[in-house]
């Protein structure tokens, strides 16, 4: 780099210290080419392929799993009007919606406690929040099966206080599925909320108290709005994977608790009815993208990445 260019750069940086440098025009493209190519081939192309598969029809007289490329949009209507599909789809959003609210109710106070009340234990507590990730999530879900089983501690406590009858249990049930989903995605809720609470200047909260706001009013008017980006990120990071999850429903629920993910897996891998499974996947993605866009528009947060 010539000295003149270096000086030019320095001058520029003085005016806008955070403005990235302008060098060879092709450099950034070259840097990201391999990674973006990978995402194009293994994310974008598959989505297109999924859409094409969703329009396929069986080969006449062919075997199970043999389909030909047609553009049969009736697949969408046929699948959506079938109650074995639209009920699990609806159930998925109900379960994941409840689980997201529960995770918020548990995760927000937890993040608040870590951010403001943990003192020198803060880093240790943060490690404890992500510690569950270090154990295979399928084994943790199996552990819930043991914990919620009729011989387990939860049912024993619930029976002793009379919340659950002598013959009734918790596993398998919708409650167990929702508890499992809430559990599996709780760290995804807690960490972003913590990240935005950590940036809140405690003096702002003190100031609200000095101005005679009651603690709750101070929270509602100062802390909560400032933590909103974390809440938005946390709810999305919980809701999106929860809506597509099928491990919890498969391991903790009854057949009557199946979610759309179970249907997609079963139709794709066991029935080999690829077009129907592709329709379901595509509808799930479309529903989630719509909900996410509406939600982001509502709460008005632009930069999430």
């Amino acid at each position, binding site marked *: *780099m010539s000295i003149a260019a*270096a000086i030019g750069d*320095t001058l520029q*940086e003085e005016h806008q*210290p*955070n403005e*990235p*440098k*302008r*060098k060879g025009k092709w450099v*950034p*493209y070259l*840097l990201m080419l*391999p990674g973006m190519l*990978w*995402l194009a081939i*293994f*994310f974008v192309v*598959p989505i297109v392929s*999924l859409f*094409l*598969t969703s329009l396929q029809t069986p080969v006449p007289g062919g075997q199970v799993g043999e389909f030909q490329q047609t553009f049969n949009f009736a697949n969408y209507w046929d699948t959506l009007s079938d109650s074995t599909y639209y009920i699990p789809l609806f159930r998925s959003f109900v379960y994941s919606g409840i689980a997201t609210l529960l995770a918020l109710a*548990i*995760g927000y*106070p*937890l993040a*608040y*406690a*870590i951010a403001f*009340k943990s003192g020198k234990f803060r880093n240790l*507590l943060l*490690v*404890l*929040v992500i*510690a569950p*990730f*270090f*154990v295979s*999530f399928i*084994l943790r879900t199996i552990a819930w*099966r043991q*914990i919620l089983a009729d011989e387990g501690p939860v049912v024993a406590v619930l029976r002793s206080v009379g919340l659950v009858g002598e013959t009734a249990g918790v596993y398998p049930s919708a409650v167990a599925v929702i508890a499992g989903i809430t*559990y599996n995605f*709780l760290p995804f809720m807690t960490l972003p909320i913590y990240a935005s609470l950590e940036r809140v200047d405690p003096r702002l909260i003190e100031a609200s108290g000095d101005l005679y706001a009651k603690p709750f009013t101070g929270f509602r008017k100062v802390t909560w709005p400032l933590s909103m980006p974390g809440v938005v990120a946390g709810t999305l990071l919980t809701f999106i994977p929860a809506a*597509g*999850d*099928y*491990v919890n429903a498969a*391991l903790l629920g009854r057949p009557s608790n199946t979610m*759309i*993910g179970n249907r*997609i*897996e079963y139709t*794709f891998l066991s029935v080999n009815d690829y077009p129907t*499974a592709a329709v379901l996947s*595509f509808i*799930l993605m479309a529903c*989630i*993208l719509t909900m996410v866009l509406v939600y982001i528009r509502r709460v008005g947060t632009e930069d999430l*990445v």
Partner: protein
Amino acid sequence: MSQATAAPKAPLTHRLRTWVGDNALRIYAVIAFVYLLLPVAYTFAFSFNDAGRTNIVWNSFTWDNWLNPCGAPEVCPSVVNSLVVGLIVTVVSTILGTLIAFSLVRYRFRGRSTTNLLIFLPMATPEVVLGSSLLALFLNLFVPLGFTTVVLAHIMFCISFVVVTVKARLASLDPRLEQAAMDLYASEREAFRRITLPLVAPGIAAAGLLAFSLSFDDFIITNFNSGQFTTFPKFVYVSATRGIPPQANVIASAMFFIALAIVLISQFAGRRRKEV
């Protein structure tokens, strides 16, 4: 953590109530932590269960599972598979993702927001959709499923997480540090190698660890694209119906302590080096 702030002469019930009031948030947090860690404790405890083939009810204590972690069939081969996949995925996705992060933070160029969107979308897509769309592609192109398709799929979903992690670290770097190095007659390449890279290294390491743990623990995408190939999570899920051998708990517990040790050591080392 317990300090009673009430006057010492107040009646006990009143003091108790004040203490609970003062520490309500802490008590809530403790309960939340019990909720978070109870399944981990269960998984660990049941690794010592003398259970035979089905590890559901507590039987009796034994060291056998830990002394012979490969005692149950299929456990160790599936772990080896997961480790191999995880290592390849970590190396490739960390390199690809770090390059993208650098170009996004260090350069302004046309198509930047499209790039950001393409990074964000795989993270905003449920795993069933990612898994089934890849399967649709592989089926349409008659690609045989197995080790290769699993690696290809894992690298895809890990790249975005690497980009986000490295980007955060890069964005918090003071660009004046590099500038200062060049003022002191370091060439651009030297400044990058001796200033930027060491400062970003913790972010890249964190991204690599994240990629490895995402790959090692992935079940849903793997299940769609693995065919007969079995990873550790897939083995556990498949054997859930006929009973998971306690050796699986041993492997999971061992991984837990290794990961915990890495995180705690890196935190300790980070503190000793003082704020970077």
